[in-house]
């Protein structure tokens, strides 16, 4: 399934947040959206998943949903959004219950996704017992359980320390390698963007519009930390963003 954004603009009251964003997210690829803080990249992600409505423009889904897909557009949140009163398997089962999947069918799916995220041994643990990295892996397992057509990731690694981030990036690359998924990945971290993105979309400062789209052809599995090609891309991105980031930093919040 493909996602297309057609001329999306948005304003909150008087503040123009996004202007004329047109973008297509190809099937089976990870599209990273980067930009300075406050450029509306998270807002854009909420439009794609239907959690918020743009003032103008449309988000279109093109093509058939994959078989067995319960929730085509599925989020992974920065702060994990796990229910603290449910165990790991309970958090996964939450998103299956409303589809009438219970008992043995549910157990099969839960066991499968926990195995894929290496959480099998923690099925009965409560979120408060888990480290940040594990919590995010639970959220990834929960997202995989509904067999999504597109994963919408909102700064999924930003709440984690840098070592855990490295490990989780490897996990994501491994998961993509096993079964390529379509994803929109919002981040302010350029290193994450060049490691995970097939296509990187650079947004400008508010009002956010597309400054540049960069395609990186190198296969995900061959991208390693300290890779020279990637460093060059990262440098290029930073050149694009530096002045904007500085200006964004000097802005008053809500001014």
């Amino acid at each position, binding site marked *: 399934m493909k996602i297309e954004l057609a001329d999306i603009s948005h304003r909150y009251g008087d503040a123009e947040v996004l202007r004329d964003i047109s973008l297509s997210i190809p099937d089976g690829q990870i599209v990273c959206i980067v930009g300075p803080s406050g450029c509306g990249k998270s807002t854009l992600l909420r439009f794609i998943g239907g959690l918020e409505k743009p003032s103008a423009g449309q988000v279109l889904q093109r093509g058939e949903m994959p078989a067995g897909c319960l929730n085509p557009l599925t*989020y992974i949140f920065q*702060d994990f*959004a796990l*229910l603290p*009163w449910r165990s790991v398997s309970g958090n996964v089962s939450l998103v299956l219950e409303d589809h009438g999947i219970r008992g043995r069918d549910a157990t099969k799916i839960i066991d499968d996704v926990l195995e894929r995220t290496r959480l099998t041994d923690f099925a009965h643990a409560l979120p*408060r017992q888990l480290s940040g990295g594990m919590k995010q892996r639970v959220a990834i397992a*929960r997202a995989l359980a509904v067999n999504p057509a597109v994963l919408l990731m909102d700064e999924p690694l930003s709440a984690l320390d840098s070592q855990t981030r490295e490990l989780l990036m490897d996990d994501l690359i491994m998961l993509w390698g096993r079964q390529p998924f379509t994803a929109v990945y919002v981040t302010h971290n350029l290193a994450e963007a060049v490691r995970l993105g097939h296509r990187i979309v650079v947004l400008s400062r508010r009002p956010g519009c597309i400054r540049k789209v960069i395609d990186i052809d190198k296969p995900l599995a061959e991208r390693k930390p300290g890779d020279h090609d990637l460093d060059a891309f990262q440098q290029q991105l930073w050149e694009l963003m530096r002045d904007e980031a500085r200006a964004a930093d000097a802005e008053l919040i809500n001014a």
Partner: protein
Amino acid sequence: MPEQGVVREVAFRGGGFAPKTRRRVGLVVFVALIALAEWGTRAGWISALTLPRPSDVLQTFIELYSSGLLFKHLVPSLMRLVVGAAIGVTIGIGTGVLIGLFSYIRSGLVPLIAAIFPIPKIALLPLFVIWFGIGEGSKYALIAFGTFTPTVVATYGAVDNVDRTLIRMGQSFGLTWFSIVRKIVLPGAMPGILSGLRISLAIAIILLVAAEMLGAEYGIGAYILEAGSLYDLERLFVGVIILSVLGVVVSGLIGAAEKRLLNWRV
């Protein structure tokens, strides 16, 4: 040592501000106070009119128990407490959740709740007698009404405090409205609701005595009022202590409920 000058250890200035439960300290305070009163009344520096002797109070309690009157007073009181509080708390939680979820209900009811919260419910007892009769009905109504308002306020505050990202998460996975309320909003509001219950149920016990002021032959409240009007301090204290124990039991029950329902908290 190459360094010159004074060497001092860095003074510790952290710690504190983290009270912990120390077992049996509470009990020691109780026992000490009672022992003090006993000593004072026996030694004579507390006169019998100021404070009854604790051992006499105990004696009175034993008489009350052995005459069988204890349960004759306690059973109807507990009945009133349970029925009244159950009605008030149920309607209160229901209303609080609705206020927490719907803009129109919130805008319509929050000012109304603010208006009826400060009314001393005891003042309305005559009204309840007219509406619900001099029997049990007016007593249930008084206790129910008294527990209703604090429960509503605690509940909608708790619903407001439910983590919005969890609700967005529920929506993003296509959960139904009803599922979001049942599986995310209610459990998320439970800590606030339970701590609100502590207050509501204490108010219920206070109102129990008020409810039994009118037309109750038996009941802890009636017993206390009768002793009070006769200046029978021993019996007055027996009644008051029964109410205190009731309060401690209720608080213990809520504590147990918290332990069971909120074991997911840090």
